[in-house]
Structures are given as C-alpha cells and as structure tokens.
C-alpha cells in the first residue's frame, strides 16, 4: 500500500440549509481509506451514508472540514477540476445502474472514454471490459433499456472502469438485483479489489457488506 491514503476526511460536516432549518447530514466525520482497501459503509436510511459517498465522489462539497483524494484537497477545486477528477479518478456504480438510456451498452462504456481521451477507443478497451463483466455478442450493441438489471449493472461496472480510476464508489450496487445477480456483481467487485482498486460501497445489506475488508457504521451523520 502507498503511504498516501486514497480517501481522507478531516472533520467533514455537511449541513443543508432548508426553510425549516439547518439539517446536518454529516457531522464532523474523520475517516481514512487506504489505497486498495474494500470498505463497506453501513447504516439505516437517513444516516448519511449516501451523503458521505457523494462527498467522496466529489458530487458535493463539505460545508466544513477537508476532503483529500489521493492526497489532493478538493475544497478549493473548481467545478471543472472536480468534474475532471470524477472522470479520471473515480468510477461510480449506482443502485439504479444509471446508464444513458439512448446509448447502447458499448456506447455507454465508450462515453466516458471519449470524454476523457477525445479520441476513439482504438485499443479495444471497451470490448475487453465488456467481456470482462460478461457482456458479449448481441448484448454489446443493445440499447441499455433492453438489458436486464444484472446486465445493466455489469455495463455500469465496465463504464466505471473504462478510464482506469483509482477509486470505485458503489451506492447499493446490488439493491435492485436478485440474489444471484447480486452475488455475481459482488464477485466482480472483489475481483477488481484484488486487482488493486479502492472500493467504497454503501449498503444496508449485512451479507453484501461482509464482502468488504472493513465495515464503517454511520448513524445520524456520525461514524460509530
């Protein structure tokens, strides 16, 4: 493991200002996730686990405290820099798969590659990744809405990997899948972790959480 952690949160708070008053979603969270770690974040609904994942994924910024990804503080970054960070350093997996509905499986995986590299995938990386997650043959050119949930999540994994990110963030990745498909996805994630990827997974399912090397419990915005 490298000396610089993949993710570091120092006294991070996220407070939402609502008409009814301020709501503290994360309360003074300090956390460090090493490179190559597989961490599961568990907690009941509304505990702040998705907020924490959004912070790590640079989709949202802390109200207070500091967040560092691979040693770089994100607090002072512009929207452009944060977007670039999401493109190159982070791969996302969502509960609802979140593929772009008008694109095929191939195009969904190719999309972030084109955005980052500004050129076509001449090395066959997209096809290799789709094969790796078991999307082959006619499935490759099928529009995402014509794929099953398990197939969509596999495509989402290939998409998350296409720019070779250091960190993969998963928000209930098996939440919309049956047990068999869920287990297949978890095995893929374990495999990726063994290949050196840092995986942070939010789940409320203890069975899935036990695939991780470390489980972090969060309650009322605080790590227990």
């Amino acid at each position, binding site marked *: 493991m490298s000396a610089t952690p993949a993710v570091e949160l120092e006294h991070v708070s996220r407070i939402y200002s609502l008409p009814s008053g301020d709501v503290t979603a994360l309360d003074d969270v300090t956390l460090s996730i090493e490179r190559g770690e597989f961490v599961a974040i568990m907690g009941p609904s509304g505990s702040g686990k998705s907020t924490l994942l959004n912070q790590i994924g640079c*989709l949202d910024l802390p109200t207070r405290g500091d967040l560092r990804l691979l040693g770089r503080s994100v607090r002072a970054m512009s929207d452009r820099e944060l*977007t670039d960070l*999401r*493109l*190159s350093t982070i791969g996302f997996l*969502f509960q609802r798969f979140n593929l772009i509905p008008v694109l095929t499986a191939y195009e969904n995986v190719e999309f*972030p590659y*084109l955005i980052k590299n*500004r050129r076509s995938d001449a090395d066959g990386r997209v096809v290799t990744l789709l094969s790796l997650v078991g999307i082959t043959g006619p499935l490759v050119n099928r529009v995402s809405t014509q794929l099953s949930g398990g197939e969509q999540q596999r495509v989402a994994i290939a998409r998350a990997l296409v720019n070779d990110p250091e960190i993969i963030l998963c928000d209930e990745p098996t939440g919309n899948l049956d047990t068999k498909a869920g287990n297949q996805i978890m095995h893929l994630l374990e495999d990726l972790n063994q290949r050196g990827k840092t995986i942070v997974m939010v789940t409320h399912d203890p069975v899935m959480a036990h695939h991780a090397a470390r489980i972090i419990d969060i309650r009322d915005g605080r790590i227990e």
Partner: protein
Amino acid sequence: MISTGVIFQVAVRSIRLHFLRSVLAALGIVIGVVAIASMGMMGANMTLAITDQLSDMANMLVVGPSTGGGGGGFGGFIGGGGAGDSYITEKQYQNIQKIASKYGIVYTLRSSSEYIEIGKSRGRATIYGLDTEVLPKILALQEGAFSKSITSVVIGPRLADRYGLKIGSRIDIGNPDEGSVTTVRVSGIIEERGMSFDLNTDSAIVGSDRLFTIILGGEGKYNQVNIVLSDISRVDEAKKEITDELNRRDEVISIQDSSRMLETITSSLSTMTGFVMAIAGISLLVAAVSIFNVMMMSVNERIREIGIMRSIGVQRWDIRKMFLYEAGVLGTVGAGIGAAVSFAFGYIFVFGMVGTVNYFFSPQSLLFIPYAMAVGILVCVLSGIYPAWRASNLDPVEALRAE
C-alpha cells in the same frame, strides 16, 4: 468518434426518441423560414422588375407647369384630363429648348384621355401628341412604321390586343354625341414598355402634335416638356439652369428627376418589403417559443440523464453543447426543409404577386433563402440557450435523485 461527436449523437438520438414533438417544433421553423423567404423574394422580385423597367428612363427630366405644391408624383404630369388650367406655354418651351438642347433631346408632350370607337367597340384611351420627328427616337415599334401623315397613329400593344387592332385598322376618336369625330389609321404597333416616367404607351394612341391640336385644340400649350439627357451626371446642372431661368420671378415650372424618383420608388419598395418580412418574422417568433418549450421539456425529462453525465465526468459546457446541438439540429432541419419549400412556394408566390419570374433566379432574390435559413437556425439556437444553461447548472446530486 470524438467527444463532440458523442455529445452530438446523444442530442440527435434524443430528438429521434421524441420524434413527433421534435417534428412539430421544426414545423414552426419551416413555416417561419418559408414566410420570411417568400416575402423577401417577392419584395426583391418586385423591386427588380420595377427598377429594370424604369432604369432605362433614369436619364429623364420632366418639366411641367408648377402646381404650387410638390411634383405630382410618379408618371410626371401626364395622363390627366387634357391641358387643364396649367400648361407649359410655347414661349416657355422655346426657353427650355434653348437651354436644354445641349443636354440631350427635348420634346413636348400633350395628352388627354378620350372616347374612342373601333367598329362596334367603344372605350377610352390616352391620346398622346408628340413631334413626329421625335417619335422614332423615343419609341420602338414591334410592327409597322411611323408615318408623317396627320391621320396616322401608332398604338400600344395592349390596346391593339384589347380591340383586335392591326396595321391599317381605323379608330374613331371623340364622342359623336358631344362633337366631331376624327378617324385615324393605325400605322404601327409600339413595343411593350411597361411603366415609364415619360409616357405610358401600352394602352395609348400616339399621334402627331398636329393631330392632337386638330382633335383637342390648345395650340402652343403643352402638358409637359421631356428632356432625355445624353449624360446622366449632368442632371443637377440641367435642372438648375432651367429652374434659374424659368422660375426667376415666379415659380412657373417644376422639374421631376426620374433617377431621384427611381430611388424613391426603390426605397419605398424596400421599406415595404422589410415591413412585410417583419410580419412574416412573427411566425418565427412563435416557432421560437415552440422550440423553447420543447427544449425545456427535454431538460425536464432528462434531469436524471444530466445527473448521470455530470457524475461520470461530463463538463457543464458539454451538457450545454448537447442541448444547443439539439436546438441547432431542430433549427437546421426545419430551416433546410423551409428552404426547399421556400424555393417552390416562393416561385409560385412571386409569379402570383409580381406577374413574372424573370428575376426569381437572380442573386438578390435567391439570397433571401439562405438569409431566412440563417435567421431560422439562429432563432432556434437562441431559444435553446436558456434550457441549455439550466441543464448545465443542475446540481448533480439533485439531478441523480430525479425520477
């Protein structure tokens, strides 16, 4: 496929996904482009047709009796009901002749609308009386010849068509119930001239000055004196010299300059065309609202998709581009179809309104098609700016939560 390509592709696919809605929005642009292009082409064709007809006579000065209030408008001083109270006297004509002969051909003109009878057909026609020496210099015949005989006349082609007149046909001028009738013989038919500053001969009878005097009297009294300048650049000089001499004491004559009148007509036509095009532009405004509505609906339906794109690293500018492409594609397709329809519709419209398509393929006319297309596309892209801006500024977390 580069990134711009994929962003463009997503935009095009979104249009295809909502095909009917997109077609209806583009239809607004089609109508707007057709309206603007057709109106513009109609105006351009009308201007070209009129200026072409009149530009041959741009070197004309028309001297008439002073009416005490302005020039009397297009057509000079002719075509009224006889000499009336105001006329150019023989002495004034001699003065004008003395001054203006160095500038070009000077000739007098008398005209009156008279009752005519051809066989059993009756009607009215303008009778012009001119110096027979001048006639061959200012009029061209399509058939027949000029004759020095007092009772010979040349007639306009429309008059010939209307009454079936040929060379040798006889025309009775004057109402038998009111006085004497003079019978004249057609010796030639004038070529069609269209509108003119000096004399409108297409439906007229043109005879000698002497014939006019015999029929209507008024010897030495002229409706106007025309000067055909040999050098158009001397218009102002000639005008000034004649005015200085004849209007030295009182304003007895006024001069109309055909090139200025041509400018005024062209300017008026341009203003009218602009006004009509502005009205046609309202249809584009309606189309813009429709495109705006479609784009806003597209943004609202794709909030989640925008969230996904933002989360995987698509920059705000690319999101903006995606919606601008969508608006641009709608505009380009609409404007393209509009241009094709404008070409066909404009042709029919110009033929119906102007009566000729001789000028339809001229650059001044066809220019309105790319112009209307550009306006159509621009309107579309402008309509897409706010929706694109709104889409690019959505909060990724909120956008991902959208259903």
